[in-house]
């Protein structure tokens, strides 16, 4: 017992020492971790946060080139006001007119869905005041943005660079995904020559965007391009892609879709090859047809990869500039001028403040669309999986 009593304090002291040692060690570890990480964190902060902050400040200024350097004048939100409400509104947002019947109906449906989405959140058990605020903000912004889309794409409306960008993003990514998935489904089959076609389908991605821009510029030239005899044969001698805004946008979209299908294709091919064979076999044994197999076995398994690849392309597509710049110069008018090209043109003016303001508006739109996409997709996938 004595031994025990004597032993207890002894062991207590030893364990305290050990704990103190561990704490000291842990403190050293923490310090070392901090010291080793700090340079990297500082570099990342410098490279990403500093440009963000400096361009934000630039967007609040007017910059003039004067003898000996730059004359920078703080003008508050004037650059944003000009784009959203002033002389730049027509260029950035477009000409808002009464939407077509179809456009109006689409807007009503979207508005209804957004309100339903908001109400469902408000009635849900996991609701919070912050969450409700952001859901309300997202609902208002989506309804507002969609109104701009339908009002500028109506018969008398003219889309600005904001709507043109949305068209390039959503139409482009939709077709890239559908065609990319189709090609991936084709080449995941045990077909002769599939290795050869895998390489061929990847080729557009290896060509520089400038090359693709000039290639499509040549191909869409109906007078002297390589396809001129085909256009003439089809009786489209006097047809021109560049004659109308929608024609020019279609030409740009075809080029962009062609360029980015390989990206969708290669990622989706990898996802399809990762689909569990056991489940496919089991479904076949249970008598599932091809459509049921695709809908209930393949789609759920490639959904996470699909959503990721769509998100990456959505974010990337917002920055489209090369194809419209090379193919049409943003014309005719502003029919193919994306927000990135608009910002570039402002920078070239040189209106550095206006260009920075446009870039920030682009950042806001991209972030908003990405967050909405992630939220909606997370809910949908969560429900299905």
């Amino acid at each position, binding site marked *: 017992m004595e031994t025990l009593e004597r032993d207890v304090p002894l062991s207590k002291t030893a364990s305290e020492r050990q704990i103190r040692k561990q704490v000291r060690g842990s403190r050293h570890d923490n310090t070392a971790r901090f010291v080793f990480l700090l340079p990297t964190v500082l570099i990342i902060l410098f490279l990403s946060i500093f440009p963000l902050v400096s361009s934000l400040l630039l967007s609040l200024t007017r910059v003039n080139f004067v003898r000996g350097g730059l004359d920078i004048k703080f003008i508050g939100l004037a650059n944003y006001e000009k784009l959203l409400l002033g002389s730049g509104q027509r260029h950035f947002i477009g000409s808002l007119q009464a939407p077509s019947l179809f456009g109006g109906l689409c807007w009503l449906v979207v508005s209804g869905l957004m309100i339903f989405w908001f109400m469902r959140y408000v009635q849900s058990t996991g609701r919070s005041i912050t969450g409700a605020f952001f859901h309300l903000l997202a609902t208002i912004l989506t309804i507002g943005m969609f109104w701009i889309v339908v009002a500028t794409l109506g018969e008398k409306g003219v889309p600005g660079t904001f709507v043109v960008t949305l068209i390039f993003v959503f139409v482009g990514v939709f077709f890239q995904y559908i065609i990319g998935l189709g090609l991936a489904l084709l080449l995941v089959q045990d077909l002769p020559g599939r290795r050869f076609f895998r390489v061929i389908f990847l080729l557009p991605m290896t060509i520089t965007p400038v090359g693709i821009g000039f290639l499509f510029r040549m191909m869409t030239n109906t007078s002297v391009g390589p396809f001129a005899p085909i256009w003439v044969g089809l009786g489209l001698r006097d047809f021109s892609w560049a004659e109308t805004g929608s024609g020019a946008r279609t030409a740009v979209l075809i080029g962009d879709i062609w360029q980015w299908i390989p990206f969708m294709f290669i990622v989706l091919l990898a996802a399809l090859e990762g689909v569990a064979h056991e489940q496919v076999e089991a479904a076949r044994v249970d008598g599932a047809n091809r459509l049921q197999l695709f809908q209930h076995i393949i789609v759920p398994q490639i959904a996470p990869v699909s959503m990721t690849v769509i998100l990456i392309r959505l974010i990337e597509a917002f920055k489209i500039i090369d194809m419209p710049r090379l193919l049409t110069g943003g014309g005719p*008018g502003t029919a193919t001028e994306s927000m990135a090209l608009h910002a570039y043109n402002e920078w*070239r003016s040189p209106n550095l403040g206006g260009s920075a303001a446009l870039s920030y508006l682009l950042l806001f739109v991209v972030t908003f669309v990405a967050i909405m996409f992630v939220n909606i997709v997370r809910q949908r996938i969560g429900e299905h999986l």
Partner: protein
Amino acid sequence: MRNLRSFLALAVMLVLMFCLFSLASAQDQPYAGVTVRVLSFTGPQVTEPLLRRGPDFEALTGAHVEVTTVPFSDLYQSILTDQATGTNSYDAFVLAPQWLADFVTPGYFADLSGHVASDEAIQWDDIAPFFRNFIASYAGGVYSIPLDGDLHTIYYRTDVFADEGLEPPKTWEDYLTVAAALNGKDLNGDGEADYGSCIPKRRAGQGYWWVLDVAGGYLQSQGTGQGAFFDTQTMNPLVNNAGFIRALEIYDETTQYGPPDELNLELNDTRSLFLTGRCALTIDWGDIGSLSIDPDSSTVAGKVGTLLMPGSTEVVDRATGALVPCDETTCPYAIDGVNHAPLAAFGGWGGAVSAASAPEVQDAAYAFFSYMSQPAQSNVDVTMGKTGYNPYRLSQTADLAPWVAAGFTEEGAADYLGAIEASLNSPNMILDLSIPQTQRYQQVVLDTVISQFLAGEFTAEEAAQQIYDQWQEVTDEIGRDSQQEAYLASLRISRDD
């Protein structure tokens, strides 16, 4: 021993000779070891002579010339950012004379007055006074060496006009009439329908000058000093008036008689169409004349006529903004009742030297531009279509021999040079805009709005109002008084000695 002495004497002599030869070579090549980095326009025209003659200049002076090119739409900004940020990647720039105000004021370019004064070889007085004053001079100094002389004229197919019994157009209404009459006819014998008029209208190209060609005759009638861009009293833009709106309507109508994709055509495209016989009319700088005699690019050699820019029988009354008929008071310089106002579009390429480069590099850069501009080189280059250089020296228009030697017929050369001289000598010639941020007025606002108008996004009235509002905004942003002062100064540019 004697042999050794002889050998040593021979060796010493050889060493001396080598040293003397080296010294003489160094004297012959004053810029040996110097590299001149030149920024120019993608072209291929304009830059082609720099690349071709660079090695010759290096052999003469020892200076190595490196040429970097960017698209025309990026050139202004490339010069500005290079100089403003102190990057100084270039020692010399080939640029538009209209931008001098933006680059000379902050001190980016070296004053070349001293170089010019001590350089007999450049034959400064042989350069036509207008180009000497418009391209080269700013605020009393010489900042750019003329390499080219630019103004717009009309080119038409003489054979087609003769066959169809048509007269060359004198007014813009005539232009539309003949363009409509010839559109859809086979002009080059290939059995396919061709086009009445070809004008480059692609956005972010150089298309905005063409609408000014049409508008000029309506806007300016009282001589060069009146100006065609702003009211000299108020600095209000001269665009929201009946004359400019009429010009927009005419410009839009020309699209009906052009290629289907005219809105996406650049200058090289329309040139190619005209030179392959597919267009009856085009408006261009002097390049078409020299390109038309080049058998490699042209099928219309000897079939091209050149004309003074068409005009109008009505001009804008600046007090009311309405169109009034031409008479002795309203159109004192009218020819047969037609007010012509040829536009000195662009004015011509010039070479400027960076003030931030080392003195010996500045000297070498000046020497290179001087070499390019000297008659021995330039009088040959202006006759070659691929150079993009058009006549700007008195000797180039006075002597037909080099043009005939290049392939023109004597009659063709006289016609071509006659139209250029008629434009240059017109007392009502329009000086292109040359005030601070001209690039923003023209390449940004005018180019975008005209493109929107042609695409149907604006009516003519809306387009005119858009240009008016946006030009006013630019003027107010920079400073109305200083812009007015600069505009008045630009109109006072002497066209004589």
